[in-house]
């Protein structure tokens, strides 16, 4: 095939997740097509925009947080997904025109079991907001996505009825927790490390991160009475010089067997495709929330696509106030 001589650039967030993309999807793709993949890290909206605007696109395929995916989509920085190459299957989240989710992860509360017995740890978001009953320093994120959702849940909105988000109500709710937040965290690893170094007691964190920390031997545990499920997306920058190969690589990320293997490798991360569920190991399955449980919430990408900028600015402003 003509793809043989090529190489394409993959951009992800680095770390252990990326190691597994490389071992699974990318290795398989290279084996099949002979296309070399350069693994790079640091997906960044500004860099993406600059590349697209100046028609000098270095990246060919990138993984994106939901916020980044929404931004890239809105700014028209992504190629349309060629669903003739990517075989989309029945999934717990819908695919989109320019991007699709390929695994989920979920947010709850991380804490140090050495410092807090389980009954002193907030389980629901209402508990998390209740500093009297569950005293301790909180850690939240410094961005609007996910925070507005848990603020509404804490205020009593049923997890399945979050969207469209009632922003005013969410910010009112956030006002109540603000005095108890020791740090609004920018970098995901800090959701764990700040608990570890005793800067904070209860951190909004992701299950997969806690699992990884436990494997390192760090004293860390995780509860979530009201899990919030978020997806990681993948897409191809507009004007990619290797669009065809990139689409081909994307299709590997949509494959249920790949997603299942990934889910097994990193428990706490779940496949999107329903067909992948049966292939999960017992341990992996036990570490995933039940998507259909009434207490489980999903982030709605459509709402965020329309409201991301406004919500984000308002959140930053709220932080400063």
């Amino acid at each position, binding site marked *: 095939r003509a793809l043989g001589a090529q190489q394409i650039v993959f951009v992800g967030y680095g770390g252990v997740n990326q190691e597994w993309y490389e071992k699974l999807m990318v290795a398989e793709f290279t084996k099949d097509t002979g296309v070399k993949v350069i693994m790079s890290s640091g997906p960044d909206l500004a860099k993406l925009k600059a590349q697209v605007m*100046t028609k000098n696109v*270095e990246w060919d395929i990138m993984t994106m947080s939901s916020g980044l995916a929404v931004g890239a989509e809105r700014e028209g920085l992504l190629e349309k997904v060629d669903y003739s190459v990517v075989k989309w299957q029945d999934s717990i989240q819908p695919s989109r025109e320019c991007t699709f989710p390929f695994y989920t992860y979920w947010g709850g509360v991380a804490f140090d079991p050495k410092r807090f017995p389980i009954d002193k740890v907030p389980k629901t978001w209402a508990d998390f907001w209740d500093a009297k009953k569950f005293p301790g320093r909180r850690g939240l994120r410094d961005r609007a996505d996910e925070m507005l959702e848990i603020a509404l849940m804490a205020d009593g909105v049923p997890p399945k009825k979050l969207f469209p988000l009632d922003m005013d109500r969410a910010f009112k709710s956030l006002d109540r927790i603000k005095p108890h937040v020791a740090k609004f965290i920018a*970098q*995901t690893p800090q959701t764990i490390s700040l608990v570890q170094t005793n800067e904070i007691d209860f951190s909004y964190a992701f299950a997969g991160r806690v699992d990884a920390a436990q494997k*390192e031997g760090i004293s860390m545990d995780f509860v979530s009475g009201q899990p919030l499920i978020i997806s990681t997306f993948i897409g191809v920058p507009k004007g990619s010089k290797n669009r065809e190969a990139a689409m081909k690589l994307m299709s590997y990320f949509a494959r249920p067997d790949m997603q299942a293997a990934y889910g097994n490798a990193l428990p706490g991360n779940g496949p999107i495709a329903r067909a992948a569920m049966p292939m999960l190991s017992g341990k992996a399955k036990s570490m995933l929330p039940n998507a259909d449980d009434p207490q489980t919430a999903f982030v709605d990408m459509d709402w965020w696509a329309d409201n991301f900028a406004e919500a984000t600015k308002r959140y930053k402003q709220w932080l400063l106030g």
Partner: protein
Amino acid sequence: MTNVDERLSLTTAARAWRRTGSTIAAFVYFFLLMPSLIVVPMSFGDKREIMFPPGTFSLTLFREYFFASTWMATTLQSLEVAGASAILSLVVGFLAAYALVRYDFPGKRLLNLVLLSPVLVPVIIVALGTYLYFSSIGITGTTPALIVAHSVHTTPFVVVTLMAGLRHVDPNLEKAAEIMGAGRIMVLRRVTLPLLMPAIFAGAMFAFLISFDEVVIAWFISNTSTQTLPVKMYSSIQWEVSPVIAAVSTLLTLLSLVVCLVSAAMQKPA
């Protein structure tokens, strides 16, 4: 602040005044030194803890640094970029410093200010602008692009250092050589440059270290294959908490120590 000989009896007020001053100074010296004192023991801890003092003593972190290809590759890249921009800024800076010290021309003061402006303009602005511009001509991500971008930043330091050095090189020496029949190149080679060597060396060290430490511009301009060490550190802090940073920090502190010993030595003759 007082020049009276120690042994002359001072008024009580004078003595209290001096003691207060020395105490405050000692406190501030300690404050200034603390970070450097901290990172070194930290780097001998092990992989899991980020605590001071480290509970264990091991070389794990150094081993990880030296054997992980990603750290070594970025270090080599940083060495290359810092080395090249030091050389480039030395050449450019020497010519400019020579003009500024030895010649009088209209707009000299302005040029002086303009030369320093890359240091004075917030880096984030330069980084953003450079990125936009370099992408438009399609050279982002290349090592030469990094080198020139860093050179703009290091040149002012080189110019200032060389100007100070040149002020200590008596222009009469150049004059004398020329009157004795030496051409301009010969004067440069046999008189100016040998005498300027200490300043050139110091300027080179400063330029090297500044480029070696620079993160914001490199963060915008470099890509995977041209990533520098600080960028790797920065993204390490961002995406994975790796105590290897302590080891890297210790090595960088060592480098800083060398550079400031050199610049302290430089200040004595001045």
